[in-house]
């Protein structure tokens, strides 16, 4: 247990990676969006911005970096793969949870201040903001975790099987998607699929993505178990 916590502490030795850069991206995205809102004339409809996603995409990169650079170093620190995995993913989960709560609070402020006084919509996204607080936080949390795990797993696959592995995975993904599209078309399921997507709620989406995360997490761990630094 102690060593797991130490893996998290090791990831935090350089404060920028897990804390500083996300904070800068959060603040920067808000500032730029706010300036744009100030510049465009008032009185129009609600102005939506996707800038809040910016930090989430950074987590994809962070997932890749955690593995490619920190994993070989953790091996030199005599840390087992399991300890490294739990410590790293655990730390990320805590950071993601903190940012999710922050997004929820910022969403509340956004609604209370009539979109930061500009009728803007950055955090309290219409579709999600109506849900219960827990669902909102869960939704952001799962989305961030999914991006991190995607980066982490792909980096692990690359670490073990290099370019060949990447190529095979991408071809396999393409074939599976193509197969699903073909099957849906052939069976005439498109209206049903459309209806299914429309029927999704933030909670159900969180559930599906959580399932996806669980697969990614298990896949990453199993791939990492035989990875060499």
């Amino acid at each position: 247990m102690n060593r797991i916590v130490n893996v998290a502490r090791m990831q935090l030795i350089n404060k920028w990676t897990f804390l500083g850069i996300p904070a800068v991206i959060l603040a920067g995205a808000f500032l730029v969006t706010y300036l744009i809102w100030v510049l465009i004339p008032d009185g129009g409809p609600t102005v939506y911005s996707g800038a809040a996603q910016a930090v989430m995409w950074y987590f994809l990169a962070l997932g890749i970096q955690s593995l490619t650079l920190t994993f070989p170093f953790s091996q030199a620190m005599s840390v087992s793969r399991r300890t490294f995995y739990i410590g790293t993913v655990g730390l990320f989960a805590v950071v993601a949870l903190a940012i999710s709560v922050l997004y929820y609070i910022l969403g509340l402020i956004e609604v209370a201040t009539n979109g930061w006084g500009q009728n803007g919509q950055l955090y309290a996204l219409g579709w999600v903001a109506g849900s219960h607080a827990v669902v909102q936080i869960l939704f952001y949390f799962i989305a961030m975790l999914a991006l991190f795990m995607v980066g982490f797993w792909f980096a692990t696959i690359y670490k073990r099987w290099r370019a060949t592995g990447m190529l095979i995975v991408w071809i396999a993904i393409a074939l599976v998607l193509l197969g699903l599209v073909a099957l849906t078309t052939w069976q005439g399921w498109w209206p049903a699929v459309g209806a299914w997507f429309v029927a999704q709620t933030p909670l159900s989406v969180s559930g599906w993505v959580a399932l996806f995360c669980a697969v990614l997490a298990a896949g990453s761990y199993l791939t990492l178990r035989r990875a060499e630094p």
Partner: protein
Amino acid sequence: MTAPGESTIIEIRNVTKRYKDTTALDDVSLNIYGGKIYGLLGRNGAGKTTLMSVLTAQGFQTSGEIRVFGEHPYENDRVLSRICFIRESQKYPDDFSAEQAFASAALFFSNWDKAFARRLADDFQLPLKRRIKKLSRGQLSAVGVIIGLASRAEVTFFDEPYLGLDAVARQIFYDRLVEDYSEHQRTIILSSHLIDEVANLLEHVIVIDKGKIMIDDDAEAIRGSAFTVVGTGTRVAAFTAGREILHRESLASLASVSVQGRLSEGERAEAAELGLEVAPVSLQQLIVRRTMDPGPELSMNGAATELEVSP
């Protein structure tokens, strides 16, 4: 071989490691005993790094068994926490400085000596605040050497630790290693192909070539295990007849022959009478000879090969 009674800390049984088209370790069996400085010697690509990777569970053997402190090292934090292995091509997080790498090592190695790490950084003139990826090759090696020394792990592996280090820095490393080892007994496994430089540090020598263990013996025993005879060709030939020849060279009428084995007092006197010079073979020469063919029976290309006349 090592005397019984010393505790075995690493057991290696029939370990083989195959990559796609090469066999890096070929049915290796070894015991490593505690409280010694081991030299793991061999040419580049002989299997030194692979062996150390497998022992520290950073890499995987294709077949065979390994026990470290009596347990499997793989995914075993209890065993791993007593080991330190910094690779020759060790990667560090992109934005880490040496200082941050040391702070990290302090988290994981319970015997970490911060003051010692600082002193070593001074000795090696290592800039602590600069990002590791901006360091020179020698400074990068110094980071690994410092982690290895200051971790004071019960078993510490040094993987060609001198790459890019100049002669002065290498001497500092050897000196600090011996000083610290005498105060804090532990097991050091030093891989190297600069055999002469490290020969005097070593208490036990393991020579690996093409994935096989060639020599596994006490350094003292090896030092006296071969000699070179220099003198007139015919006399040398007569004197060395029937012995295991390691290497043979000749220049004009002079011959230099390296022979496996020891000489008795009587044989020494006989050699002196014949006007032959007898000198011990250095560890480096011995390993070079043992890992190469002895050479043709009647070598006449003396001018092209270096004539090894031991002092």
